[in-house]
C-alpha cells in the first residue's frame, strides 16, 4: 500500500501516530482506527452534524475532513468531554431534562454545545435554538435539548 501518510494527531489529550491513506476520513479514523466510536456518522455530506468534533476547540464536521488535514492539530470527541464516572455538567443536564432518545445525534450536539457555552455562558433560548440549528435530531423535536442547555448553563455558572 503506497502513499501512506505519517499522521500525528492529538485526540482527547493523547498523541497518536499512525500511518493512514490520505483519503481516510477523519470520522473513520476516529471511529475505526482509534476505536472512539462515540462520534457517529449520519450522512457523510456535512448536513446532519452527528459527526461533529472539536478541531482546535472549534466544532467541525469530521465527515468532511480527511484525517491528514488534522495532522498536528488537537481533536476533542465526545469521549473527551466526560466519563461514566464523571459526566460533564452538560451531559448531566441532558440526562436530567430528557435531551436524548436514541442518542445517535447526541455526541454531535454535545461537542457543538460545550464550545458554544464556553463562548456564551448565559445564552437566551433563542441563542440556544440558533446554536443547535446545524444539528439534526429526528427523535426529540429539540425542545428537551434546549431545556438541557439552559439547565447546563445554569449549572456551569454556579460552579
Amino acid at each position, binding site marked *: 500500500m503506497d502513499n501512506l501518510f505519517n499522521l500525528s494527531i492529538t485526540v482527547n489529550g493523547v498523541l497518536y501516530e499512525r500511518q493512514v*491513506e490520505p*483519503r*481516510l476520513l477523519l470520522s*473513520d479514523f476516529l*471511529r*475505526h482506527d482509534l*476505536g*472512539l*466510536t*462515540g*462520534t*457517529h*456518522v*449520519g*450522512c*457523510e*455530506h456535512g*448536513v*446532519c452534524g*452527528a459527526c461533529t468534533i472539536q478541531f482546535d476547540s472549534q466544532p467541525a464536521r469530521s465527515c468532511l475532513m480527511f484525517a491528514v488535514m488534522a495532522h498536528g492539530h488537537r481533536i476533542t*470527541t*465526545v*469521549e473527551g*468531554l*466526560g*466519563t*461514566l464516572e464523571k*459526566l460533564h455538567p452538560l*451531559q448531566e443536564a*441532558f*440526562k*436530567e431534562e*430528557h435531551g*436524548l*432518545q*436514541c*442518542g*445517535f*445525534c*447526541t*455526541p454531535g450536539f*454535545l461537542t457543538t454545545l460545550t464550545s458554544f457555552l464556553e463562548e456564551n455562558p448565559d445564552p437566551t*433560548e433563542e441563542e440556544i*435554538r*440558533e446554536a*443547535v*440549528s*446545524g*444539528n*439534526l*435530531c*429526528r*427523535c*426529540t*423535536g*429539540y*425542545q*428537551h*435539548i*434546549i431545556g438541557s442547555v439552559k439547565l447546563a448553563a445554569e449549572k456551569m455558572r454556579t460552579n
Partner: protein
Amino acid sequence: MAKKFIGERVRRNEDARLLTGQALFVDDIEIPGMLHAAFKRSDYAHARILSINVSAARDLPGVHAVYTAADMGEDWAPGPPLVSPPPSVKDVTFYSRRQAPLVKDVIRHAGETLAVVIAESRYIAEDAVDEILVEYDPLPVVSDLEKALSADSPLVHDDLESNLAAHLNQQKGDYESAKKQADVVIQRRFHLDRGAAVAMENRGIVAHWDEKAKQLTIWDTTQAPIPIRNGTASRLGLSENQVRVIAPFIGGAFGPKMMMFYPEEMLIPWVSVQLCRPIKWIEDRRENFYATTSEREQVHEVEIALTKDGHILGLKDDFLHDTGAFDPYGLTLPLNTQCHLMGPYNIPNFSSQCTAVFTNKPIVTPVRGAGRQQGIYIIERMLDISAAELSIDPTVIRKMNFIPPDAFPFNNTIVDQAFTPLILDSGNFVAVFEKAAEMIGYEKFVKEEQPRLRASGKHVGIALTPFIETTGVGPYEGARVQIETNGKVNVVTGYGTQGQGHFTMLAQIVSEQLGVAVQNVRVVTGDTAEFHWGTGTFASRGAVVMGNAVHAAASGVRKKVLKLASKVLSTPEEELELVDGVVRIADVPDRSISLGELSGLANPLRGAVDPGFEPGLESTDYFGPQSGTTASGCHGMILEVDPETMMVEIKRYVAVEDCGRVINPLIVEGQIHGGVSMGLGNAYYEKLQFDEDGQILNASLADYLIVTSREMPKKVETGHWETLSPLNQLGSKGVGEAGAIPVPALFAQALQNALFDHKFEILETPLSPNRLFELLQAS
C-alpha cells in the same frame, strides 16, 4: 407506604452510556478478520440486466469476493411474505411479489442491489463497485399511480396482467342508502405523497459465521430481531438455536427498520457463511433514500354525506395506494388508512375500496403513523370543507359527530391491520378536544385576537385536529424477570429498542411490583440469545404488549418472593411488603430479608426440593391482547403565514394525548415532541420527489429537508387525558406514533384559516412554501 414508580418522571437508565459515547451501535462492531461490503445498485428504475461484468472488481487488490445473483446458485430466493392479507375480509385480491437479495434479470426500482463486493475495507469495496460494468436494457418506467392502472401501462411484474397488487373492499352499513337520505353530498379528490423516515442512523448489519462453533451471530439495526433470526436460520438451513440476532442501540427507526429481509439482510449472513469471515455492511445516507422503505403516496376519491346541520350519515373513500415495486408488507398500510378514515366519529355507513398498485419505486412499508395519517387527513379535511359549505363552526361539526364517551367499546366492524374487527376500546374524544381548545384559548382567539390581527393585515390561523390511533396490537410479546443474588433485577426480552426509553419504562413496571429502585433493574432488549419469543417494536405497542408481558413476569416473581419470604419470616403473605429491595413485615420493618438473600435461598446448593420446584426468583410470562387499544388525542396550533414568502411561524402548539396509563411522563412528552417534529416535516418540508424515470431528485439531507430547531414551535405544550384501556392490566395504550398523526391535517386547517382572504382549497399533502405559492397563484 410503598413507593410508586409508574407515573413518575424517572430519568433514564440508559443515558449515561449514550451521553459518553459508550453505547454500542451496529457500526461500532469490530471483529478481527472482519471484511466490508459495498453494493452495486441499479441507476435505472426499470431495466433488464443484459450482463454484469465483475472481473475488474474481483481483480482489485484487497477484494475478497464479488457476488451476483448467478453466484448464489440455488441459495438465491426472494424474501418471505411478511404479512398475508387478512383472512377475515371477503373478496381480497392480493398478488405477492417480494424483493430479492440480488436482482437476477429485471430491475424494478432504482437502487436495487445488483452485486456485492467484499473487501478489506469499505474504501476498497467502493472502489471495486465502480469497476463493475452493467449492461442495461432500459424499460419504460411506471411512476404515476393512476397511469399504472391504464390498459397500456408497462408492467412492473410482467407475469401479472396488470400493475394491480391488491384490491380490498370494506363496508359498514349501507353507504348508498345513506347518501340518498343526505341533504348534502360533498366530493373531493386528494393526493397524498411520500415521505421518508430519515432516522439519524442508517441501516447496517454485521454477520459473523463461526465455522468451528457452527454459530451465526448477527448485529442488525432491526426493529424485529426475533423474526430475523427465525427467517435467517430457515433460509440458511440452520437450526434457530445456531443463529443469534442482536439489535444493539439503534439510532432511531420509525418503521422502516421493521421491514424484514431487506436484500442486504438476506445477503450479508449468506456471504459470511460462504467466506467464514465476519462481514459488515453499513448503508450510507444516499443509499438510505433508495434502499430503505418509505410510504404515503395515495390518491383518494372521497364522498361525505351529511344532514344540513352537520351530522355525518356516511363516508365513501375509494383510493389508490402505491406499494412500490414489491409488496412484502401485505395490506397493513391501506388497512390502517381505512381504519382511520372514520376517525373518532360516529359514522354509521362507510364504504372503502382500496387498490394497491405496483410502481417502479422503492418498496412501501410503514413509517411513523403507518397509513393512519392519511385516514385522519382525509376525514379532517372533509369535515373542514363540510363545515365551510354548511356554514357550521369547524369545532361544532366535530363535537356533534364524536363517538360519545359512554359508547365504548365501539365497533366499527371493518377489519384492521391485526385482522380483527376495528373495535375502539375506550376514550373520551369530546373531553380531549375541549381540553385542547381550552389550552390554546380557542374561543378567545377566534372572537378577539384573530379579528384584531387580521385587521392589522396579519395572516394568522388557528386549527384543532382530533384523532385516534389504533395501537397495542398483538400477537404477543414475552419477558423473563429474575432477581439476582446481588439484589438487582434482570429483565430480558427479544423486543428491540430504538430510543423510546424501554430500559427505563420497563424497569419502572418491574420496580412497581418488586419495590426495587429503577436504577437496580437491568433490562436487556433485542437479543435472541436472551429471549427468543416475540415479534418486534412497531405500531406503538411497546408499553402495551411488552409492558404488560413484563408486568406479568414481574408479578410472577412477586408471588414467588412472597411465598418464600412468608416461610422464611414465618409470617402470612398478606402482612408482607416489598420496599427498597427487601421484603419486610409491614408493621415490624426491622423483620426483613433482602431480595438478594432471598434469591440465594431460592437456589439451594444442597438438600432436596419439593415436586414442582422452580429454582430462583424468576418468572417468564407473555401477553397477547385480543385486540388493539385505541389511543386518541387532539392537537391545536396557531400559525402565522407570510403570503409573500410562504414562510410560516408557529405561535402556539398544543398536544393533548390520551394514551391510557402513563408509565413515564417524561418519555411520553419526548415521544410527542418527536412525533410533532416529524409531522411538521410531513406537513410542510418533506416530500420524496420522484421524477418520471423513478429517480429520487432529493436524495440527500441537503435537499430532503427535515425539521431543525428553527422550524419547531418554541414550545409544544402537552396535555394529558387518561382513559384506561380495559384490555390490559396496566391500562396502557401506546403513544409512539401519535405525535405525527394529526399534523398534516392540522397544518392544512391552520393555513386555510390563516389565508382566509384567498380562495383555494388544500387537497394534498405534503405542502411546501413553493407549493403553497403555486396554490395561491392559481386561486
